[in-house]
């Protein structure tokens, strides 16, 4: 079959269909093909038919030109449909696959559709849906990969970041071609994310792209590209050059990358930056750096700054030096570095001298504050030093000292050292102006911070305790003291279900409050304390408090629903009875809370 003629007829028929059949009569280009068609028609009748139809188009009456042309195109199309090319020459190679690291899922359309829509549309409420789907492992359905890749450009950055950081990396190299196909180094928003992701998946393969982005990428892409540098020796000159770039973002990225390179050239650039306008950017970079030489740099700068304070008369200059020193001190966080520790101990010893230095906005006392803060989270020796001087530190930092003490003293020592602050004689009227009052509050607040007193306001906070589980438990005498002092919040923080006196106190407080209560809010904190102490009467108390709502329900009482998960499972039947009596719109929230309680381990 003469495919070439067929193709030509199709092309001409197509041209005439585009131009309109009014111009088809006498068309010489189609006419030229008729002899070839007639020739071919001797062997295959379909060509003869085509020739006949083409004649009708060219020579037929004008009023039937449309019908003839349609007939011709239909016929040629029908023949061409039987001539479709299949197959492909060349070597068939296996597909490179990526193990998704776990079983694949096949989810039903009803579940997938809303998820697909949230990945490809705009509007509120999508982040939750995507987070939930990620949590349930639904992104293991391979059909979600393309939409997830598209979501890198989501106008809501939180969705795009979640997808880029949590979802897409699990597909590995399999998504590289798609990432590359969509990547535009001149682009913004999704494109820096693409480069970052490609680099995370395949650092070696992406190096060319990184280099190209450094040359001609948009500012955002360039910043990401710079952050990918540092692993190769040839990067160094470029990074040094970029540390003097005009754009601050570019300089910051260059410092970050240089901080990862343990080379004298890199140290020189950062040392210079610490004395110039980029001191904050450089210090931030050093904070993340594993290189000890850079910490030495910081230590030298801090010491020089402090030494200069003694001779500085200008108060503005003093404040500027304090700001700079504090920033550098904060960059020493989490450093196991001998010179840094020595510096902190030295500055702590010099606190009297520092106290005397006055600036216009910040003074020497602010340096002491930062030093104590850093020491409270520093080495054991640092912690011991500030604990030993607990009576001398400013009251507003006693809390930090207390936290440090919990890590270096035994529970009994901690009690013996700090309990006297709670029983000391204070002037309640003077409040903060009285040192003993301020010290007592500081210690109590430090203990309070270990528990979630307002747990009922939040739905997501699973734990009642924020206390570091690695820390030793409090000495039992603390709770006795709290009950004696009748400090409800302190009891809440130190609560133990086995403390009879605390339970009796909580119950009495609740009953007392209930008698006076006009709304449930009046017994909220008392009820919370009973929950915290796992009081055997807490179900009864819960429903007694609920009864204070009367017939009208209020949005402001949603804390009740949050408290449900702290009830025992025995409360479920009673809760279900309750749900049947409350309005439909509120019932759904209760149902969710009951379900949560039911499934609670």
């Amino acid at each position, binding site marked *: 079959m003469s495919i070439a003629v067929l193709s030509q007829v199709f092309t001409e028929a197509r041209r005439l269909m585009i131009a309109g059949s009014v111009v088809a009569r006498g068309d010489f280009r189609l006419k030229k093909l008729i002899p070839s068609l007639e020739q071919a028609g001797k062997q295959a009748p379909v060509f003869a038919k085509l020739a006949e139809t083409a004649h009708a188009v060219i020579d037929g009456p004008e009023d039937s030109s*449309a019908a003839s042309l349609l007939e011709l195109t239909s016929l040629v199309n029908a023949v061409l449909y039987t001539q479709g090319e299949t197959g*492909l020459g060349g070597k068939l190679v296996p597909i490179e*696959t990526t193990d998704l690291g776990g079983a694949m899922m096949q989810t039903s*359309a009803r579940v997938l559709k809303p998820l*697909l829509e949230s990945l490809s549309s705009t509007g509120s409420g999508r982040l939750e849906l995507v987070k939930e789907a990620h949590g349930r492992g639904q992104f293991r359905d391979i059909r979600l*990969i393309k939409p997830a890749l598209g979501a890198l450009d989501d106008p809501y950055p939180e969705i795009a970041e979640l997808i880029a950081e949590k979802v897409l990396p699990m597909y590995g190299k399999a998504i590289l071609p798609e990432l590359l196909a969509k990547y535009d180094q001149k682009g913004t928003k999704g494109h820096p994310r693409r480069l970052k992701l490609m680099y995370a998946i395949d650092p070696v393969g992406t190096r060319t792209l990184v280099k190209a982005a450094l040359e001609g990428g948009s500012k955002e892409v360039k910043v990401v590209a710079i952050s990918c540098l540092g692993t190769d020796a040839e990067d160094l000159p470029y990074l040094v050059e970029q540390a003097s770039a005009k754009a601050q973002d570019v300089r910051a990225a260059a410092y970050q990358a240089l901080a990862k390179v343990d080379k004298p050239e890199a140290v020189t650039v950062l040392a210079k930056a610490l004395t110039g306008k980029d001191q904050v950017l450089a210090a931030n970079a050093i904070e993340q750096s594993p290189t000890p030489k850079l910490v030495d740099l910081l230590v030298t700068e801090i010491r020089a700054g402090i030494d200069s304070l003694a001779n500085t008369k200008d108060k503005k200059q003093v404040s500027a030096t304090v700001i700079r020193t504090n920033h550098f001190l904060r960059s020493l966080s989490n450093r196991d570095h001998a010179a840094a520790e020595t510096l902190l101990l030295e500055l702590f010893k010099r606190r009297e001298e520092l106290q005397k230095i006055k600036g216009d906005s910040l003074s020497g006392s602010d340096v002491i504050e930062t030093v104590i803060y850093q020491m409270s989270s520093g080495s054991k020796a640092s912690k011991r030093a500030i604990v030993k001087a607990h009576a001398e530190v400013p009251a507003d930092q006693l809390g930090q000292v207390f936290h440090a003490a919990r890590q270096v003293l035994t529970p009994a020592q901690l009690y013996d050292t700090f309990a006297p602050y709670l029983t000391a004689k204070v002037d309640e009227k003077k409040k903060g102006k009285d040192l003993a009052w301020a010290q007592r509050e500081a210690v109590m607040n430090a203990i309070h911070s270990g528990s979630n007193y307002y747990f009922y306001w939040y739905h997501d906070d699973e734990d009642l305790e924020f206390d570091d589980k690695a820390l030793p438990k409090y000495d039992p005498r603390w709770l006795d003291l709290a009950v004696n002092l009748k400090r409800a919040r302190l009891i809440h923080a130190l609560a133990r279900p086995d403390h009879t006196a605390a339970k009796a106190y909580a119950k009495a407080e609740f009953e007392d409050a209930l008698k006076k209560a006009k709304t449930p809010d009046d017994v909220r904190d008392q009820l919370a304390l009973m929950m915290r102490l796992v009081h055997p009467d807490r179900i009864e108390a819960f429903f007694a408090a609920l009864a204070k709502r009367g017939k009208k329900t209020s949005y402001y009482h949603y804390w009740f629903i949050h408290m449900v998960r702290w009830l025992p499972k025995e409360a479920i039947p009673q809760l279900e009875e309750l*749900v049947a009596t409350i309005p439909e719109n509120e019932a759904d929230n209760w149902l969710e809370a009951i379900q949560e309680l039911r499934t609670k381990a």
Partner: protein
Amino acid sequence: MIPITEEFVDAAAPNADAGKNGRGLILKKKFNKLHISAEGDLLFGECQGSGKVPYQCSADFARADQPTYRCTCPSRQFPCKHCLGLMYAFAQKKPFSTEDVPADLLAKREKLQVRVEKKKEEATKPKQVNVAALAKKVKTQLDGIDTLEKLTHDLVRIGIGNMNAKLAGQMAEQAKRLGDVYLPGARAALYGYTQLFADDDGKFDARANATQSERVYTEALDQLGRLHAIIKQGRAYLTKQLEDPNLAVPTDTAIAAWLGHAWHLTELKAAGLVEPDAELVQLAFNSHYDAARQEYIDTGIWMTLGNGRIRVTQTLRPLKALKYIKSEDSFFAVAQVKELCVYPGSVNPRVRWDGMIPRPLEPKDLQTIRKHGSSDFAKAVKEVKSALKAPLADRTPIFALNFKTLGKVGEEYVIEDANGERLVLTDAGMSEEPASCGVLPLLPKSSFANQTLIARFRHDLDTRQLRVKPLSIVTDSAVIRLTL
């Protein structure tokens, strides 16, 4: 009674919200009474609604494959959340007491029984046709065909290149009239042409059309060819019908559907287009929104295990009636159908059924599917080409292909059979389903050798290439769905 599982109730729900609300009723303890008949084929109960009087709801499994749901609530969703809640309660093993069937339900059951019997009887009787009225309708349709011909010829005279937004809009207005002359299918085909000149939302935008590219020309050409075929075949079909003394609808051609004839199951049964005791497995499912038609189209692609034929189910859900029409969903079990009605058509005709009983999909079912796949690509391609040359054929037929290797040649994905025949995989031109080639590298290695590919063929008129879009891969342990 068939065992009711929560999955069964999920599938019966018209949409995800109805299912969720049904479950909520149990948790909210809205069911005052939960009963089951002594025979175990009727669940009934009382559910407290917003009014004083509780709703009486029931799920009747007297016909196991076609449960009857009844409720006194005013909801137009079917089954309503109360019936769904009742079934969820049963699936969750809530206590159901055995009670006598209430008199009103008994009466309704009897009525239903009578109706079913009557229907059966009617099905055996020759259908009474008002010949005069039907002849009038057919004549009107023939007049409509003349109008369609005039419009189509006008379009050809003007030329595809001279189409603009204004003209397309006017033509769409004209097309509306075809619905008034009982030719909704022809109207849709004309819409199909005008929509080529519209934007993604189905609106005619003059600015967009001013820059109309060559891209749509070939597609427009094909569409006009179809209109030409509808006119020719439609006229012949209607004339043939008019010549028949009973004006019976010819069942040997798919043109009736193109003209917009809505087949009744009784018609199909009467015409013998029925397969008894069929078992079907869903191979793929997609739901897409057609902006031009303003409706969702849920398409299921199924294989009948007995004969290996691939057929489709279609549920059209217009936006205006979205709430009242059950959305279809992926189906992972085997559907056991007593009477499978098959529409006239060639490669993948549409199918429908009245009732269905699900059973779990087993490895032997997957073996059967794989056995039905075509291991000779050349033969399958010949079959496809032969089907495609008919102007009104489905342009994207679906086949099951047993491949030896799935691999890559350059950047293209390719399947190869045992004889070394190859087919190239593509996503081009088939936008109803999401692109699927991109997910192939994420499949386990074992999916790339000696498996069955459920593939949609498409001939590209511009490139003259016949390629396939992968929909699913059937292995001996699963149907891996690649599209949605």
